[in-house]
Structure formats: structure tokens, C-alpha cells
């Protein structure tokens, strides 16, 4: 039935343009001249042999030519004639000088639910240097996420950004806390997260900058039945198979303040050779459960970059140390612990794969240009999460993360990423690759 339908569609699409155009009778063609007097050069054995692959590939040719290319060409040409592209352009990009617009987006991170949505932008909204961004994503009523961002750019060196995000997802992953968690420990939970903050960024001395932010973050967690074959965290707690992760039962609502200082010697010259030191710290207070409790997260990264022949092919080596300490008598909520995997360090692991009080990671990365707006990247990282102040740190307890991918460059607002990554068990457990991560789509970077 399907085949008949496809064949019919293809036949109609193929014959439609000609039947429409051919309503008038076409003049009879002149005979093809015998240009060289011998009816063309003789066919070589190689040319004759081409009939074999030609016949073998004919179904694929039929589909690509008559089911895809010609109908699409007919449709797009008709749309262009009807000036539909300009209508669509005006629909998706509008406002003075088309500085506002809407772009459909999609993101697939295998192991999680995919999402589709819209990304809206408006540069110079109302006045120069004022930018608005809206981003909405969904995968059904249980998977909703929205972000609104407003940025005031006062100069090349200073801007102020207000960001509000609300997310509800039923597919968050949790594998436990500690350096020895296993891929088979996967559990799921529903999370509801809100975050609103104002952030200032002051650049200095080339590519160095200081970012400070104050804001509010709240989270609550609960049951999910989205995956039949994967247990929900709350069920595991109820059966006593899992001690409740800190903050899971009660959630938290916390004002926070953070600062990040980046000293980067690379400046804005053609070369990307240089060194970078990054220091960050965040303090949060859990107003919901105990105003005297909260957390302090801090850490740093030191890295060196070599731009091979100043060609944009950059090899870098960086070492990061991250810590999270409780303030007061309550432990740090698990989502505020140090985490590895996902878009953060060690991307060969899924988001939420590794949680604990501290982490050490060394990353060797190579990035190279493959197109005007795309870079390739290959990275190998080793490290893991550890206990309080690197408690239990041993090289053998490290894991390996490798990732190969493509990432868009040039935009701070939205990043296209296609990546395949692998993560391993700890070296002392054999270091077997047990984690695969595949990501395709646009993620927020504003």
C-alpha cells in the first residue's frame, strides 16, 4: 500500500510540471546534428560497464530524483513565484531592518527526550544595544522549558544581562552520588527548576573578563513514569534501595550570588595561542528549608592553548578543580553538587551522570575549523568526582571521557552541536567504556 502511494505521488509530481507546462503543444525538435560525422566517439568498455552500477542503483536514483528532487523543485519554485520566501522571511524575521525574528529549533541528546521549540531574537529592541531573546522548548506537556533574556550592552567592554528560566522535565537522569557509580544505576526523576538572575560582565585586557551575578534558584523533584524500564528515584527511595539524595524530597529555594574571573592572555588577535586562568565562586542560601544553610561552590581552571601556525587549529590542555561545600548543617542539594558530564566538563558522559562534593578533570582538546561557522573538536579528558575536598582522590579512580563533534562558532546566543562521546568506568574497575552520548541540535548559549 505504501509503495503504491509513494509511486503514485512520484508519478504525479514528475508528470505534473510537464503536464501543466505542456498544455500547449511544443514545437518539434530538429534532428541532432552528426557533429563529428561518425555519430559521436565510440563508447569505451568503461562506459559500457557503467550500466551495471547504474541498474543496481536505479531504485535509489528513482527516489532521489523523482520522489525528492523534482517534486521539491516544483514546490519551491512555485513558492518562489508566489513570493512565499519573502512572506516567510518577513514572518520569521521582522521589525526594522529585520533585526527581530523567530527560528525553529530542535535538540536531541540520546538517552533523554528530544525537544523542539522556537528561538526568538530582537537586536536593538527599542534602542541600540538592547537585545531580547526568548526560547521555548517542549516535548509534550510534561517537558516544558522557557527562557527569557534581556541584555543591555553599554559598550564593547560592559553589558548587563537579565535571565529567567523555568524548566519542567520528566527525564532527568540520576546515577547516585560518588565516584564509583555505574551506568547500570540509571534512575529517572521529574525536576522543576526556576532560575532568575541578573549578571554583569566587564571585559578587560583583551579577552579577560569578570562576571558577577545575583539571583534566585528554586528546584523541586518528584516521580516520573516516563520510562518503563528505568526506575524512578522516588520509587527506589521508597523501597529502600536508595538513600534519598540531599534536597530530593524537599527541594530548595535559594537566592545566590556568584562571580567568575577569567584571565586570558589571548586577546583578540589572529592567534589563539596563550594561557587562561578561570576562578569562580557561588554562594547560595536555602531559604525554604533553613535560612542558615546553603552551599558554597568554587573552583578554578588553568589552561594553555597553542594555535598551530596561527591557523585556528588549537590544541589545549587544561586542568580543572571544582568543589562544593555545605554552609550550615544541611547537606548541599544534589543538583548543586559538583557535576560532570553533559554540556559541562567530560562531555562523554550524559548530564547528571556524576555528582559529588569535588572533582578534578584534565582535558586535552583539539579544535579546528571545518567551515565558516563550524569547528570540529576532539577531546580526551580524565577525571572524576570525589568526596569532600578531593577525599578519595586517586588517579586509578579516574574515568576517561572522549568526544568528537562539530560545534557552531561565532554566536554567544545559540550553539549548534553534533557530538558523539564515550565515557568509561573508573580505571580501577577496568576502565571499560560504558557510556555513549550522542547529541544533535541547537542549545542555548546566551
Amino acid at each position, binding site marked *: 500500500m505504501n509503495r503504491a502511494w509513494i509511486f503514485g505521488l512520484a508519478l504525479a509530481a514528475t508528470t505534473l510540471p510537464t503536464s501543466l507546462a505542456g498544455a500547449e503543444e511544443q514545437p518539434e525538435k530538429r534532428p541532432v546534428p552528426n557533429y563529428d560525422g561518425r555519430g559521436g566517439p565510440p563508447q569505451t568498455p568503461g562506459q559500457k560497464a557503467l550500466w551495471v552500477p547504474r541498474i543496481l*542503483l536505479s531504485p535509489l536514483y528513482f527516489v532521489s530524483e523523482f520522489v525528492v528532487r523534482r517534486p521539491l523543485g516544483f514546490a519551491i519554485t512555485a513558492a518562489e513565484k508566489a513570493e512565499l520566501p519573502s512572506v516567510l522571511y518577513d514572518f520569521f524575521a521582522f521589525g526594522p531592518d529585520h533585526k527581530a525574528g523567530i527560528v525553529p529549533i530542535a535538540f536531541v541528546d540520546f538517552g533523554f527526550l528530544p525537544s523542539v521549540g522556537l528561538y526568538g531574537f530582537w537586536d536593538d529592541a527599542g534602542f541600540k544595544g538592547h537585545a531580547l531573546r526568548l526560547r521555548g522548548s517542549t516535548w509534550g506537556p510534561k517537558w516544558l522549558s522557557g527562557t527569557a533574556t534581556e541584555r543591555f550592552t553599554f559598550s564593547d567592554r560592559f553589558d548587563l544581562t537579565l535571565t529567567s528560566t523555568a524548566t519542567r522535565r520528566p527525564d532527568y537522569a540520576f546515577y547516585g552520588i560518588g565516584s564509583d557509580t555505574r551506568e547500570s544505576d540509571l534512575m529517572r526523576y521529574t525536576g522543576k527548576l526556576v532560575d532568575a538572575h541578573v549578571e554583569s560582565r566587564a571585559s578587560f585586557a583583551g579577552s579577560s573578563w569578570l562576571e558577577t551575578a545575583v539571583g534566585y534558584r528554586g528546584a523541586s523533584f518528584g516521580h516520573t513514569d516516563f520510562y518503563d524500564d528505568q526506575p524512578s528515584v522516588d520509587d527506589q527511595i521508597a523501597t529502600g534501595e536508595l538513600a534519598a539524595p540531599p534536597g530530593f524530597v524537599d527541594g530548595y529555594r535559594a537566592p545566590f550570588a556568584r562571580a567568575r574571573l577569567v584571565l586570558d592572555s589571548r586577546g583578540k588577535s589572529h592567534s589563539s595561542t596563550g594561557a587562561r586562568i578561570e576562578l569562580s565562586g557561588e554562594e547560595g542560601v536555602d531559604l525554604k528549608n533553613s535560612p542558615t544553610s546553603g552551599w558554597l561552590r568554587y573552583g578554578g581552571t588553568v589552561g594553555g592553548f597553542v594555535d598551530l601556525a596561527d591557523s585556528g587549529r588549537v590544541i589545549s590542555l587544561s586542568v580543572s578543580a571544582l568543589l562544593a561545600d555545605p554552609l550550615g548543617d544541611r547537606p548541599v542539594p544534589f543538583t548543586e553538587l559538583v557535576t560532570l558530564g553533559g554540556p559541562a566538563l567530560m562531555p562523554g558522559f550524559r548530564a547528571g551522570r556524576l555528582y559529588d562534593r569535588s572533582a578534578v578533570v584534565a582535558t586535552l582538546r583539539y579544535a579546528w575549523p571545518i567551515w565558516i561557522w563550524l569547528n570540529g573538536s576532539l577531546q580526551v579528558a580524565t577525571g572524576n568526582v570525589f568526596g569532600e575536598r578531593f577525599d578519595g582522590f586517586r588517579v586509578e579512580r579516574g574515568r576517561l571521557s572522549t568526544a568528537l563533534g562539530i560545534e557552531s562558532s561565532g554566536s554567544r546566543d545559540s550553539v549548534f552541536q553534533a557530538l558523539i562521546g564515550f565515557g568509561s568506568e573508573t580505571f580501577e574497575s577496568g576502565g571499560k567504556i560504558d557510556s555513549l552520548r550522542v547529541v544533535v541540535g541547537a542549545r542555548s548559549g546566551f
Partner: protein
Amino acid sequence: MASKRAALLGLLVLAGCASSSHFPLRPPLQRDDDDKPFAKAPKEYYSPFAWDGANYMVFHPVARFFAVDPAGAAANVNAFDEVPSSSWFEHRLGTRSMTAAEVTRGPCSEKVLDPNGPDGSWPIDKGKDNGANPGFRVNIEGLGKFMLKTDPETEPERATGATAIAARIYHAVGYYSACDSVVYFRPSLLKLKPGLTVTNNQGVTSRFDRARLDEILKQASHRDGLVRMVASEWLPGKPIGPYRYEGTRDDDPNDVIPHEDRREVRAARLVAAWLNHFDSREQNTMDVFLPLDKAQKDGPGFVRHYIIDMGDCFGSQWTVDGISRRLGNSYIFDGGHVAEDFITLGAKQRPWERAQLTGGIFGYFSARDFDPSAWRGEYPNPAFMRMTEQDGAWMARILANFDDQLIAAAVKVGKYNTVSERYLTETLQARRRAILRRYLNRVSPITRVSANTDGVCGVDLARATGIVPNEEMSLRAYSWRGAKLQPAPKPKFRRVPAPQVCVDIPHAELPVALPPSAPERYTVLDITNGYAPGPLRLHLYDLGPAGGYRLVGIERPEALTPPD
């Protein structure tokens, strides 16, 4: 099933028997009779802007891959390995020498705009708002219509000069191009017709009034208080839209050779590479219907095919530097290059990474790193992609005649300042040499072949242009005779000054009564020049010591193998 196999086998056999390797005794076809009038003008073809790019960048390559249809020999090549003149191409520089004045005049007639005319003598009857270069049309009684276009604000003088120069070059090579000329004029010459409107690429219509005109004149380049624009003479006949780089027009009975298999259309790739005419897509071509009687615009008449709008030549830049660097080296989105760079981790340094701005008005246009065989336009052109070694060599033989003096003459029509004129002249000369080095070195560059009583003579263009040393020692010749082409006594080279090549072939002892076209008279002569791997293969009839040799066919195989 068995019958299907038999049918398939039959097809293969038929395909194999379609032609013979022997040329008949007849003069080569010099003119393709494709200007036969037909009753009714074809309908205007709408060229889709977005689909053209998407199709040739993504969908067409996929479908053609599965079609397993690699480019074979061009379909409209005559017995002398040449393209007959036609409504697509008229032999000029390829068959005769041209003077600098002829090249400079190009496609232009005696009718030219007079910038010294009285105020208001150039009435504007149409606006132009699309494309990178806005402008307007003037319609002067007794002279005709001219479209005047400006330079982009960021590239003063480049585009206007490029349009005029490239039109001369394409014309001299043999293509039909418009008469584009740089003009300097007083704005007071213009007279704006009231009530004009103009529609831009987005389909938005607006008034073309004094304010818009002033805006265009302000954007234009200026010199000594005069406005600089390029004036394109309106093409003759009725425009019926661009020609496509593949297929044929159903409504043109003369159009019987798929455009992608026309040698002159394929080999235009080398001219585009020479000039870096990266915007060489169908939207920059035009078919016009030329009626026999001008009063009857819709026919009878025939179609002629023009290449137009060459303002992108010589280093046009996009607003994105990454694209500007790639123009001529890579498609705007080049899946092959992206995949290659990703898989090799960027091991290969690309020419666009080494590209440097020239410092003048010509952006990244230079002879440095210019590899004509690797040249690419904005996106794949289906005819250019099918250019074979023989097609490229054919164009190189024409360009070999475009000597440094003619290039200098062509560049002068751009009316650039001295520095720019010298830079462009030298760059075009160097890029032409790169083309000759590449395409006169794979198949035989010996041309202008004629047969005489004792044998044949020709000219080695590789030696004539200095691409290889101008000596005689490395030449070799081999001959075969008769219906079965048996090896014949070795021919002898006659002593002539290089780059001329003359070979004497001993006559066979044949009965006098043997008809001139008898297979026994058939002779094949291979001449190698010691550099190109393939020989010049000449097909001749030996008409005896009195009748001499008659040349009936020229081939340029890529390897020295005996004839079939």
C-alpha cells in the same frame, strides 16, 4: 526474466555499436545550424533563486551520484575537436587573431552613450533595486535602452570596471555578452520619469523617485565630480529568461543538446575561473528571442544565449570575510570540503586560509594559490562539473591566443586608476598562465593543423606560449594505415622552426582507381610533443602523391595507446 536480460544485453550491444572510430571523408561541421527560425517565441523561463542554490548544493549531486552518469565527451564537438559556431558561441579568438581595438570594442556597436549631451538627455524610465548594485534604466530615443548600475559602496570602481572588462573577455573568447561600458557623467544629464516604482528581491515595491535616485548617485563612485556607473546596452530581441546549465528548452526546437553536455558551456568554467566569476549561475545568463522581423516580436525567430552580469569578477567581497576568502576555492557550503576537513582533523591547509587581501579594490583576487582545476563557484554548476580534460584543453587553446597585450587592452576598458589597472593586468596574465600550464600539459596542445601534399603541419601552443621549452627534440610520431589500422612506416619530422610542427608521411602504393574514401586510404598519425602524455591523433585520407593528404579528424586522447 530471461527476456529482460536479453533486452538489456541488446541495449548494451546497441550502445556499443552506435558509432565508428573512422571519420568519413568530409569537411568538419563548422557551423551548427541552430538559428533556424521557428514560429513562436518561447515563454519566459522563471529562474528560481532559492531552489537553484539548494538544488545544486544538495539535491542534484545526490541524484546524479545515484544516476552513475560521469561526464563523458561533450556532445557538440566536430571532427576537428572543435565546437561549431552556433547561437551559443561564435569563434573569434579561437580561429583568428584579434586586434586590441577589436577586443576593446567587444560586443558594442557604434551606438554609445554620450556623456557630453545636454542636460536631461538621458530619460530614466525604469528603476533597479535588486542585486548588489542598484541602478536605473535610461531610454534614449534613437540610441536605445541602457541599464546603469553602481558599484557597491564598499568596493568603489571594482564592479563597474569588472562588468565591462569581463564582457569584453567573454566576447573575445567567443561567447555572447552584453555591451557593458564604464561611463562618467554629470547627474544633470538624467531626467526622471514621474511615477516610477521598483520591486526589490524580497518582493517589496517602493517608489523610484528623486530621493531614491539621489541615494543611488550618492552610493556610486565618483571622479572629478562625475558619477561613475556601468552602462549595459539592452540586449536585442525579446528576453525569455536565463538559460539553464542542464537540459534543454522544450519550447526551442533548435535546442537539442543538453546544455551540460555542450563543450562551450562546460568549458566556460575556465573563463569563470580565470576571472573568478564565482556568480556564474543561471541567473546571470539570458536567452533572447531574435525575431526575423523586428516588428513581430513573437516570431518567427530564434534564440540566442548570453552571459550577463559579471560584476562579481575580480574579487567581489561578501560581508562575511570567511565567505569572501572561499570564493573561487570552495562553494559557500561545500559538503565535500567540510567532510574532508572534519575527517582529516584539518590536516590540510586550505588556500582560503592563506588568502590575503590585495590592499586595493580587488579583495582577495590574486594569482597566488590559483589552481584552475580546483576552482569552484558559489555553488556547483552542473555544466562546469562535467568539464572534461578535452573540454578544458579546448578552452585553454583559445585562451592561449589571449596574449598579454590583449589582456592589457581589455583591462583598460575598466577605467581604473593606474595602480589598479596594472595590478589587474598582471594578475590576469599570471592566472592565464596558470590555466595554460595546467590545460596544455595533459592532452596534446598542438593545434592549427593542416594537411598538405606530403603530410601535416601544426603549432605546439605549449611551446608557443612558453609553457614548455621551445625546442624540437622531444617530438615523436607514429602512424597506422588501412581499414584495420596496421602499423605503417614511421613518419619523418620536417625541419621547421619551433613551435611549428610538420610531419611528412610516406604515401602508400594504392591503385589509382581506388575511391578517395576507400578504407585502404585511411591513415592515423599520432604526434607526441614530449610533455603531454597523450598524442595529437590525426585521421587522414591518403589521396596519393598528387592529391596529398586530406585531414578528416582530430582527437586528443589522454594516453598514448594505439588507435582502435
